[in-house]
């Protein structure tokens, strides 16, 4: 499956991915109109300190804890993509608590939203990737199997 991968070696910390994400999910045609004067709620976040910066978005785990934790049954996995049904979300933020990557955050109304790879918005492919000026975010399927396991031994994430 194609996933969004981040290479911190090339991340400049410019935060363009956050703005491209917010624009892609705004449903508007013009970025200035969509984002001017507004606080943005992107689905990808740049983590940074003095030495390192990198963007974090949903890993689309093999065995997503957020899906299991959701008390409203609003999060599900469709064709490998972890999605939120915003009509069902009750805004309890349990998913925010359990996500080991800190990849989930609510929108301006307190309803959960997350990276769905821009598959359902007008962009069609991850806007963070196409807008990254330094190839620090890529969208590809990788051959090697990568797994990450949490301290309780659950498989969080399997790359294909």
């Amino acid at each position, binding site marked *: 499956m194609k996933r969004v991968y981040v290479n911190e070696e090339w991340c*400049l910390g*410019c935060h363009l991915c956050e703005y491209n994400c917010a624009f892609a999910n705004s449903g508007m045609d013009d*970025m200035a109109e969509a984002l001017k*004067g507004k606080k943005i709620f992107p689905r990808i976040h740049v983590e940074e300190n003095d030495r390192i910066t990198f963007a974090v978005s949903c890993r689309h785990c093999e065995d997503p804890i957020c899906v299991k934790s959701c008390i409203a049954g609003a999060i599900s996995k469709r064709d490998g993509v972890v999605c939120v049904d915003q009509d069902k979300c009750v805004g309890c933020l349990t998913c925010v608590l359990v996500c080991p990557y800190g990849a989930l955050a609510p929108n301006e109304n307190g309803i959960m939203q997350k990276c769905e790879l821009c598959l359902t918005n007008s962009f069609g492919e991850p806007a963070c990737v196409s*807008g990254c000026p*330094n190839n620090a975010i890529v969208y590809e399927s990788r051959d090697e199997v990568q797994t990450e396991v949490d301290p309780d031994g659950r498989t969080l994430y399997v790359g294909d």
Partner: protein
Amino acid sequence: MSIDFLYPEFEVVRNMDRCITCRVCERQCANEVHAYNERLDKMVSDESKCVNCQRCVSLCPTRALKIVKSDCKLRENANWQNDGIREIYKQANSGGVLLSSMGNPKELPVYWDRMLINASQVTNPSIDPLREPMETRVFLGKKNVKPERDESGNLICKVPPQLELDLPVMFSAMSYGSISYNAHASLARAATEMGTYYNTGEGGLHEDFYQYGPNTIVQVASGRFGVHEEYLAAGAAIEIKIGQGAKPGIGGHLPGSKIVGDVSRTRMIPEGSDAISPAPHHDIYSIEDLRQLVYSLKEATEYKKPVIVKVAAVHNIAAIASGIARSGADIIAIDGIRGGTGAAPTRIRDNVGIPIELALAAVDQRLRDERIRNNVSLVVGGSIRSAADIVKAIALGADACYIATGALLALGCHLCRTCQTGKCNWGIATQRPELVKRLNPDIGSRRLINLLTAWKHEIKEMMGGMGINSIEALRGNRLMLRGVGLTEKELEILGISHAGE
């Protein structure tokens, strides 16, 4: 001091209807032009720091920014132009020598643009490079003039060491130190992929790049930085740098602030010490001395690698080249007055040397007249800007061309000409890690490969148009060139006829 205050050269024009205050411009400007004013909730700029590198313009996601030249100027004066007055103010304030970067920006004649290329019509058919083979490969090095045979009459096929290029373009010398690790990585990878060479410049060869040795020309310059046995052995050829087109007659100076970490290790000098390349090689005062260094290097590499001698194009270049061709060197590289630099005294860069076109024509003719043209190959640089310039250079007599500014442009350079500050926003002429990482070699090498691929197509197209199917048949074929708007003397030196003749 207010006496020398001048309104900033560039103005930042921000379209506030489009600015979304994303602060990308602020994060990307190493000159700290942009800032976010929390109280006003808007972006503000200090244009006095702007060098017009256009990084912010390129990255602004809403196209809200543009940089324009300020129209606040002193009264017009054809003799005392604004730039000249600015320089006087600067020197009156500092007492120092003016420094500049990249190639000569003055309006000197560009002879490439005054020469036009021929094409076949009716009587000598042109060739379609998409349908017929077209040879762009060249070999650089000393050529045997007469076939030699052994006692039993068999041909002796031993030829002096040659550089094999898939197209007649190489990346010219830019040291690790003057440009970044990632810029070098991009050049090395692209040279390898395209079957050509890049050049270490005088900064030594970073240990990570020994793997690209077969496509590397290692330079030995007057400071001898980074030169050791493995370094010489690693390269495909060795270049003795005598001079550089942007600063003939003077040496180099990489300030101690740039001699950090790997740069210091690679140059084999202590961290923080200035890397000063003397103006002359202290062991070369004659062609005989040069010959000694050429043969020392050949001896050290078991006569397996061609030796290049690089000189700046100066008034007496034909005689100098004649001497070099007799020194044992395999290749002469000549760098013209419009050649680039990471930093040079402005007055030297803008006033010393001669254009490469005239130097090339004069050298090629002189070596032919003296029947020593086959002793050496000729490589020319100093502002080769396009495939057309390459075709013209080859028709004038060059074997291959060196490009550097063109390659840097492909890597993202916007020719703001402030390399000497070390704050290159494009990650090229800097050693600051947060800036160096802005040049991803995956992208950089791909763009260089694209550029050379495009030029190769264009070279083939132009050759085909002339009815020529190999670089060999174009070399020194001055009948393929005609001058426009040139004087008798210029035509005579270039060895070409005027258009219409």
